[in-house]
């Protein structure tokens, strides 16, 4: 009897281990394909097949990518990210403050409106925003991207920050108020510092979204000099369609900043995703 349950237990463990291994293969094979590809020459890729290791440490693909236009795409991505993120965090912290703290008639309706915006499919707004940007002459510049990037990450950010601020004890504010501190000062000197951990989580979470955004970047910009990193992949693809190793290199270069950020902010990012996840 005990022997049997022991055997069953071992069999169970083996099955779990096999599944874990299988999932590792599924999750990794594409990455393996991508990274290996970057060290191969174009014809090596075509002739040698996928699983053949690169003959030598061939770095020309990286050199070519870094000597090309990539810095400009990178610069655009960074500028758009920094501005959008700063404004986004500030505006959503501002909005979350009264929604989490004050009682007024419009509180519930406004909050519901913001939460409802989370489920608006962004592609519905793609064409009108394109037309709007053409009209106000922001089309084909990185500035056109900032508005939509803020807007589409705003609802979830407000939602998360409201939840976060509700957890901060009210006594602090009340004490400050008795000391004659105005509402604006309370926000700046008490609330803002206290929600910093929440803001950090949101910053990392939103960065990934903004960094990887494609649809708006594709629609609202046109010239290579005004495009962001996800579009670099697109443009290189047009230019080097048959040069697979080259494209893989661009892919690696565009993911690298996020992977580095992930290494440093791993906990925060996963926490951000979790906070984002439980929004429903």
């Amino acid at each position, binding site marked *: 009897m005990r022997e049997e349950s022991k055997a069953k237990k071992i069999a169970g463990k083996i099955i779990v281990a096999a599944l874990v291994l299988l999932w590792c293969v599924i999750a990794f094979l594409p990455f393996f394909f991508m990274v290996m590809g970057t060290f191969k020459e174009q014809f090596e890729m075509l002739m040698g097949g996928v699983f053949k290791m690169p003959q030598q440490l061939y770095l020309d693909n990286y050199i070519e990518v870094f000597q090309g236009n990539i810095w400009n795409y990178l610069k655009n991505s960074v500028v758009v990210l920094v501005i959008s993120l700063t404004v986004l965090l500030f505006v959503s912290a501002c909005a979350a403050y009264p929604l989490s703290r004050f009682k007024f008639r419009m509180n519930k309706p406004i909050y519901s409106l913001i939460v409802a*915006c989370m489920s608006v499919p962004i592609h519905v707004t793609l064409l*009108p*925003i394109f037309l*709007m940007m053409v009209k106000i002459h922001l089309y084909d510049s990185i500035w056109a991207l900032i508005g939509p990037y803020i807007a589409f990450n*705003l609802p979830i950010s407000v939602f998360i920050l409201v939840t976060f601020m509700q957890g901060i004890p009210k006594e602090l504010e009340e004490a400050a108020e008795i000391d004659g501190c105005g509402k604006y000062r309370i926000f700046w000197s008490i609330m803002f510092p206290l929600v910093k951990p929440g803001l950090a989580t949101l910053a990392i979470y939103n960065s990934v979204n903004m960094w990887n955004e494609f649809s708006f970047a594709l629609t609202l910009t046109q010239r290579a000099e005004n495009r962001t990193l996800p579009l670099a992949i697109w443009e290189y693809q047009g230019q080097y369609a048959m040069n697979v190793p080259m494209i893989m290199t661009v892919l690696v270069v565009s993911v690298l900043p996020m992977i580095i950020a992930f290494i440093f902010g791993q906990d925060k990012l996963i926490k951000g995703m979790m906070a984002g996840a439980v929004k429903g």
Partner: protein
Amino acid sequence: MQTTSLLARKREREVRKVSAVFLIPALLIIAVFIIYPIVDSFRTSLFDWNGITAGKKFIAMNNWKELISDDTFWKAFRNNIIVMVLSIVIQMPIGMAIATFLDRVGKKGTIFKVLWFLPMLMSSVAIGYLFKYALDTNTGLVSTISRMLGGKNIDLLGNPKTALLTITVVICWQFIPFYMVYFMAAYSSLPADVYEAAIIDGATRGQYFWRVALPMMKPSIKSAIILSMVGSLKYFDLIYVMTGGGPGDASELMATYMYSNAFESYRMGYASAIASGMFIVITVISLVTMKLINGKEEV
């Protein structure tokens, strides 16, 4: 007495004023970039317009009439539904299984957690291209493996029968890490002593999962389903990059169909009708599911 009520009223007025100041920037952004576009989309759908020149002709509901009898739109809609159903059926159980495994092994599993999370960091475009080449007929992974096993080259994306399915698999590869994290969050929100109590009462791990953990995570599972549904109705990047909706209209989705109408056929009015149609369809589907899912709970 009177002074207190006066003071209270003054306080109330101040609260209202301060709230307005804090809320206006956010509301303004939402109005300009979310609400106005939705309205504008409906308005543009009433015109025959290429989107560029001034020649904008009012044609009332003609775009909508065309949309209703447009086979490609309904094909795209059907494809969206297929992707949606498959996404839920594939992503949820695998995500749950992985989360259960990671929850069981705890800290020891950190390395798996980090590595399995990686696809979440890549943009859809990057994933799209990666797989486009990984699935290439001649040099891709699948063909290579098939040849190693003595088979022939396999063209998954160029075949109308397999294109949509292949894309769905790639979508699952991209989003399973999300549901992994999601269900890990659900696990961590369960009270810590529930597991111990169940084990002390003589439950096996399996029983704990099916009888205790799963029912307790029902609300999270429900919202995961809604998230996945709404999410899969708006796929664009990946399909646009991998197949562009092709071959033919085999993998066309509502969003790619809208895009090609706007920027390839230059039919801005009709594309706006597609966008508005998409908005209606997605809103109705999410409302109905939310009602269905939450309604059952009350019974």
